[in-house]
């Protein structure tokens, strides 16, 4: 099993009035950056990098970064820079980018070069992941939404070719044109870094990932929709003539571990406070459906099997607040009786001491059977101290226990079983080697 650490790196500014446990509601893409404090930003970027270094020391296999734009809930607008720094200051952990937003790149050759540099500086520790992005990203970098899916696919094909085909060559596609593709930087890994595809809602992305045998990473979706999405992946795999396994299944979920149950609840409640991702239930943010559902960004008939009615919002627990695709800006969410309790009951948040956390993690692993997991921690309004306490206990208790569990449950990750090959191929190869 591959075990990674993740935080969205929220921009926490308790003085702004917007952030922190008592912050005002924040409407997505409706807040000026005139309240941004670069000195605070400096502290936070360095804090999050320090925490990643410590996460590696505590035994995490991977350090996952993500990318969003024009929003305080994720400071990773240029996550490749963070990745490049981690490439130099960490030693062992994979640097997992989930993911670069391909359609917003007008020049994906630049991205191919950046990722190759990160792969070289880290000596082959890059895991690259690519997404289509939400409406926010298309607005922020002004990529034409109806061509999002086309651009995603073409940029993917182009980057893989730029990495693997000896240059120089020409590329004359639908959305990208180059007269001289010959990047003087090639990935350290041969033929190129592993590609994982994160997502929540797009049926054709799951299908596409399965067709390419790329591991699919479900991002903090509820358990049952997650299971059904992986079943869909398996079905596509079968149609493609291979059997998908745990090496194709990755799952990101919120896990915080603490010294006492009281501390765990205090810190766990901070998941739903502050500038945390407004697409998750109970968070202090208001989304605007007409921006998330930009024209042509998502084909209305291409949602995952379990999400026909409520799309990603429902899978991530926001059904109660989700209005129709074409609806108006949502009213400020009415706080349910206790968001934190609701989410812990359905395991959208797992927070506790190692004794209470480990059995819940086991339940998740048994239900979903992923070969890769990411613990989403240190988010929302959580402080550096909250994160460090958790990381220490992850290292001493949780990670060792999960490793044992994964052996017992036979959950193999993509570095144990190559997701691009059939298990039968491996057996054949081994037999040949003997």
């Amino acid at each position, binding site marked *: 099993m591959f075990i990674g650490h993740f935080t969205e790196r929220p921009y926490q500014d308790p003085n702004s009035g917007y952030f922190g446990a008592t912050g005002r509601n924040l409407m997505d*893409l409706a807040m000026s950056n005139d309240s941004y404090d670069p000195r605070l930003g400096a502290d936070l970027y360095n804090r999050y990098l320090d925490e990643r270094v410590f996460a590696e020391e505590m035994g995490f296999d991977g350090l996952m970064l993500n990318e969003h734009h024009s929003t305080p809930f994720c400071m990773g607008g240029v996550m490749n820079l963070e990745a490049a720094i981690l490439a130099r200051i960490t030693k062992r952990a994979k640097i997992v980018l989930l993911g670069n937003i391909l359609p917003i790149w007008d020049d994906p050759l630049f991205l191919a070069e950046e990722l190759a540099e990160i792969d070289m500086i880290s000596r082959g520790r890059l895991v690259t992941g690519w997404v289509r992005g939400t409406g926010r990203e298309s*607005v922020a970098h*002004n990529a*034409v*939404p*109806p*061509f999002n899916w086309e651009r995603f696919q073409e940029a993917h094909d182009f980057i893989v070719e730029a990495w693997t085909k000896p240059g120089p060559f020409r590329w004359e596609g639908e959305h990208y044109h180059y007269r001289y593709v010959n990047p003087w930087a090639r990935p350290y890994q041969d033929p190129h870094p592993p590609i994982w595809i994160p997502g929540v809602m797009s049926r054709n992305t799951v299908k596409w990932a399965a067709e390419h045998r790329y591991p699919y990473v479900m991002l903090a979706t509820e358990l049952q929709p997650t299971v059904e999405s992986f079943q869909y992946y398996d079905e596509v795999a079968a149609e493609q003539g291979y059997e998908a396994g745990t090496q194709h299944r990755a799952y990101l979920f919120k896990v915080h571990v603490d010294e006492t149950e009281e501390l765990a609840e205090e810190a766990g409640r901070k998941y739903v406070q502050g500038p945390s991702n407004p697409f998750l239930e109970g968070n202090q943010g208001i989304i*605007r*459906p*007409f*921006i998330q559902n*930009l*024209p*042509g960004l998502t084909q209305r008939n291409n949602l995952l099997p379990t999400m026909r009615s409520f799309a990603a919002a429902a899978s991530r627990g926001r059904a109660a607040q989700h209005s129709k*695709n*074409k*609806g*108006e*800006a949502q009213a400020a969410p009415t706080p349910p009786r206790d968001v934190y309790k609701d989410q812990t009951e359905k395991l959208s948040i797992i927070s506790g001491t190692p004794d209470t956390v480990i059995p819940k993690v086991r339940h998740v692993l048994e239900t979903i059977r992923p070969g890769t997991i990411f613990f989403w921690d240190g988010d929302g309004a959580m402080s550096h101290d909250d994160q460090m306490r958790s990381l220490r206990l992850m290292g001493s208790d949780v990670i060792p226990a999960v490793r044992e569990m994964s052996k017992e449950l036979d959950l193999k990750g993509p570095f144990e079983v190559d997701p691009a090959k059939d298990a039968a191929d491996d057996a054949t190869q081994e037999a040949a080697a003997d």
Partner: protein
Amino acid sequence: MAETASYAERGVELATGKINVLDGGAGTPVVVLHHSWGGPGWLPFHDALVGAGTRAIVPDMPGWGASERPVWAREPRDIAIIVSRLIAALELDDVKLVGLGFGGYIAAELATMNPSRLRGLVLVGAAGLQPRNGEILDQMMLSHRKYIEESFRNAEAYTAYVGEEPPDDVRDLWDFSREMTARVTWKPYMFNRRLEPLLGDMHLPTLLVWGKDDKVVPYECAEQYQDALPNASISVVEDAGHVVELEQPERLAALVAGFPKD
């Protein structure tokens, strides 16, 4: 709505795909190009045109409504070329070409390329030029309802026309149309810097009609069109916003029918 004049609906086959056309009345042909949010069907404005002794020809522009989408189209000029070919396929001559909002942008592009079958151009709150000072209202950052509401002179006018809540089929029309709009004019949004330099040699008589309370395309765009065109005049319509054809259908039909003066 009052009892409508009789009109026919038909498909016109072009190599670029089928175009759906509503066609009613007899006399001078008036081709009406709809807003970016799509053609809502046969309107009182079209009746008024027929009543004024003209023939109203109302296509769904390619990619909108029941007209096939040219998946290759990337800019309004592509749409204008197809509309020009539609006019040729219908064998229309001495056409008065009326463009509403985004349809005005298409009409202006078309006139710069092929005015041979046109007799006059009526641009109503037309997009197409980058305002010197203001901005064209960006529908992509607004809900459908808010954008359409802003298209009327005020909220009361919107409610009087659309009702408290738009019916599902109307919302579907807006939603569907917005995708095609994004395909051709997501960026730059609703203007083309390569249009204005071409207007100087476009000698067709042109009437620029602007609702007095247009909040979508700034009035300065009317003045910019007038400055760039050799033969253009401006008419401002009171008690109207961007959707003059919905708010003042009789007045707009009279302007169209009386233009150009022979």
